[in-house]
């Protein structure tokens, strides 16, 4: 795209916020409902698509019975789930247990409302934009929604009154907030270049070059942290089936479980759509096609297609990662988040800011710029060499700790048998030896 085209466009086009300001209430209502339905349909399609793609990646067909290519599979699943028994465990905290899935289901839809699907269009004779609402703090709305999602997880785990969900919830919360830091920091670079927190402005600011190219490190960090943020493989530790049964939603059944399921997939869509907005130019048409007819494919309803395609591509990445990568260990995962992504992000932010200041500075020749950048890089490299690689050795002798400051019992500790059990043991000892076999014990467990 040439500079003149950008300038011409900038002059003739109203910003999304200005366009949306004059929306009548009925139009807003239509948009909200349509967006809601579209997101729901996307979710249904997404669940099916994930299972199909996963199947193909694992050399098996995937669901192919319900409807053409099994496309109605998700609908069938939803119907089945809604007709299942709704169980609330006896130890659960009633109202929190019910509130948790409700809280989880709301924020993804709110976040979708600020996504800039496209620019100016005429809808039912009204000039408006392909976006439900454009706020000057749109980015913060999305981040706030993802934070509120954590409440749903924590409350669900806590209110279930059961150890596995609680552990899963704690892990999940720790993970989500850890990766939220990385995610939030990776957006700072984008805001720096766009000079605005409005999602539409950010998308518009990429008309000359996507931020994915300009800020590659931010983009990569965002991609990684969005997988961690949504608790998806290979970062799906909170629901690691082999360790924690099902994570925070172990005790949920029926439609309540469906809400968590739905929220997880909706969050995938949200973070992918957000990535499209922030780094992939929003609804703008990709490069070779943008040359056609003076960028005509970026106007009207066309952006919906591009936005959808880009988002779909990112979601495909999610599924691909799930099929290809093994799950990380929890310590590796937290270490990666806190010790790699966060510091890298901070250094990157300072570097980008410095480059911008240097570029804006008047009276600095390009030779001087290169020298300054070279010196800065040299200082950084030298500084990183100075960092000692290992922990400070703790010279003081330590009394053995069992995690939380309690003394360890000796390994050869003999536990005295409680009286009631002693009686059973005696009774068993009086029986013939063969009666107490391993198989008999297992059978007993199976009946219980």
């Amino acid at each position, binding site marked *: 795209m040439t*500079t003149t085209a*950008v*300038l011409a466009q*900038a002059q003739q086009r109203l910003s999304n916020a200005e366009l949306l300001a004059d929306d009548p209430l009925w139009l807003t209502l239509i948009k909200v409902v349509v967006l809601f339905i579209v997101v729901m349909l996307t979710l249904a399609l997404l669940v099916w698509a994930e299972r199909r793609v996963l199947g193909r990646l694992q050399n098996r067909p995937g669901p192919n019975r319900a409807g053409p290519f099994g496309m109605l599979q998700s609908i069938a699943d939803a119907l089945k789930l809604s007709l299942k028994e709704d169980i609330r465990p006896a130890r659960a905290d009633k109202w929190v247990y019910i509130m948790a899935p409700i809280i989880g289901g709301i924020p993804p839809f709110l976040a979708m409302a600020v996504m800039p699907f496209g620019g100016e269009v005429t809808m039912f004779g009204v000039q408006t934009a392909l976006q439900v609402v454009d706020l000057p703090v749109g980015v913060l709305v999305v981040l706030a929604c993802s934070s509120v999602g954590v409440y749903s997880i924590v409350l669900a785990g806590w209110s279930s009154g059961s150890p596995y969900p609680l552990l899963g919830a704690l892990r999940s919360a720790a993970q989500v907030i850890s990766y939220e830091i990385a995610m939030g920091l990776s957006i700072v670079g984008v805001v720096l*270049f766009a*000079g605005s927190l409005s999602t539409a402005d950010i998308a518009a*600011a*990429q008309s*000359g*070059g996507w931020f994915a*190219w*300009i*800020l*590659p490190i931010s983009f990569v960090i965002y991609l990684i942290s969005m997988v961690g943020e949504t608790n998806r493989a290979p970062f799906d530790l909170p629901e690691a089936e082999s360790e924690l049964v099902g994570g925070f939603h172990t005790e949920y059944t029926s439609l309540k479980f469906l809400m968590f399921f739905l929220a997880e997939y909706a969050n995938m869509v949200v973070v992918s759509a957000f990535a499209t907005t922030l780094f992939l130019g929003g609804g703008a048409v990709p490069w070779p096609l943008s040359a056609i007819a003076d960028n005509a494919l970026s106007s009207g309803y066309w952006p919906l297609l591009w936005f959808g395609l880009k988002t779909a591509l990112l979601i495909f990445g999610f599924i691909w990662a799930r099929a290809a990568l093994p799950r990380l260990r929890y310590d590796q995962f937290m270490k990666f988040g806190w010790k790699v992504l966060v510091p890298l992000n901070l250094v990157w932010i300072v570097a980008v800011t410095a*480059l*911008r200041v240097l*570029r*804006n500075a008047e009276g600095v020749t390009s030779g001087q710029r290169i020298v300054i950048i070279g010196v800065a890089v040299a200082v950084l490299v030298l500084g990183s060499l100075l960092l*000692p690689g290992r922990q*400070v*050795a*703790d*010279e*003081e002798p330590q*009394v053995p*700790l069992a995690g939380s*400051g*309690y*003394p360890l019992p000796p390994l050869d500790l003999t536990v005295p048998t409680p009286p009631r059990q002693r009686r059973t043991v005696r009774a068993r000892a009086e029986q013939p030896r063969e009666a107490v076999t391993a198989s008999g014990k297992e059978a007993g467990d199976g009946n219980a």
Partner: protein
Amino acid sequence: MTVLEAAHTSLGGFLAQVTPIQAPEIDYAAILPMLIVLGAACVGVLFEAFLPRYQRWSWQVALTLLTLVGAGLALVVYLRDNPQQGVVTLAGVLSVDRPALFLWGTLLVLAFGAVLLIADRSVEPGGAFVSHAAVRPGTIQDRAQAARLGMQTEVFPLTLFALGGMMVFCASNNLLTMFIALEVLSLPLYLMCGLARRRRLLSQEAAVKYFLLGAFASAFFLYGVALLYGYANSVRLRDIAEAAAGTNRSDTLLYAGLGLLVVGLLFKASVGPFHAWTPDVYQGAPTPVTAFMAACTKVAAFGGILRVLTGAFQATSWEWRGVLWGVAIVSMIIGAVLGLTQTDIKRMIAYSSVAHAGFLLVGSIALTGEGLSGTLFYLLAYGFTTVAAFGVVSLVRTADGEATHLSQWAGLAKRSPLVAGVFTFLLLALAGIPLTSGFIGKFVVFSAALKDGMAPLVVVALLASAVAAFFYLRVVVLMYFSEPSPEGPTVSVPGSFTMVAITLGTVITFVLGVWPAFVLDWAGAGGFAFSTT
């Protein structure tokens, strides 16, 4: 480089429209002492992170003492050519005027004494602090670490952070900055209270109590700030004063805001009915930390009270003065009467500090030049006496640690006449006997109050001093005229650090009692400066 190029081409068009924001003027020479202290605190954190454990103590002590000396030098250099009116810098947020400089100097010198006590490792082998404060009291790990020599060297950066917060607190011209400074000075103190090597449970209890009540006080302060902002549409002291001077806005907001704000400040200064934390925290905290808190926090808190009352509420003083009269009286009576009933020496000094807070408040609400200089002098004098007194308390020990019960002090003069003599002198200073700094302090404060027409208050204050003198003298009598019990405490021979701290405190207490003119001149050298913009 491709990144840069791409960015260049893509956003070249937008840049021309940006109008630069002017950076605020910063008078670096004026705020250098503060910058040194806060910067050194950061360096101290890095020391903790990167030095091996056996080197930390020596590096931290060296850094902390050098910092205090360096900040003091910077202050002295700046004092030689600072303007009479003071400097308002950092976009009107800080005002470095004569009272602020006096308070900074006081804080630095008092902190020097307290840091010497903190750094001492001869009285209590390994120092007065634990090596792992998070270990549960009473477990075998806890008993094991009491016998080991390590200590948690984080105390030093924490002290510097608290000190930096105090310096900002008494120079801030803006209630929000004041709140931040309040937090910066409080949070390290909460933590330091829980680090005592002996009587861990008591120490942790003190930390939690101080933290919870301190959090309440901070909330009060912040709520007051919010209401005042609602009243004046600004958090600057000058703007609030102007709004209060001549408008018909809602007085409810003003007085509710003032009330809440002052409650927060009085809490920090452990005045009157807001003193509930003081005895428990003074008793539970490690004695060097108690010394630091008692001396420096009081200086900072009264610095803040003076500045807020003078800067923002002088015009409305008729409305609130009666209330603060009452608070001062309550504080003096509580301190004097409850002090009488105490059997623990640290709690007794805590109640004495409540009584002293009442006396200080008498000077603070005078709102005259004499009131200001008198209060400043009183703070300096009281701070030195307290640091030295807590230094002496840390010397009298049994096998279990410090012997703080009064009965254990019986007949101390027969065991160690020198320590008993020094402590007697310090108690007399706290009581306000002539030839000590305490007398001069009370004299200047009360005479300022008299001149400002607060005679009834001064009468109450004199009565309270007389009652308070009784419990100081009781300790003196106990030390000199009782028989020592055979299994009583021993008096440790202090190492050089504690020795210097006690000597410094005692000598200055004496010097200020004999020749106070120099310091009085300095304290009265100028008034507060408030931003005019």
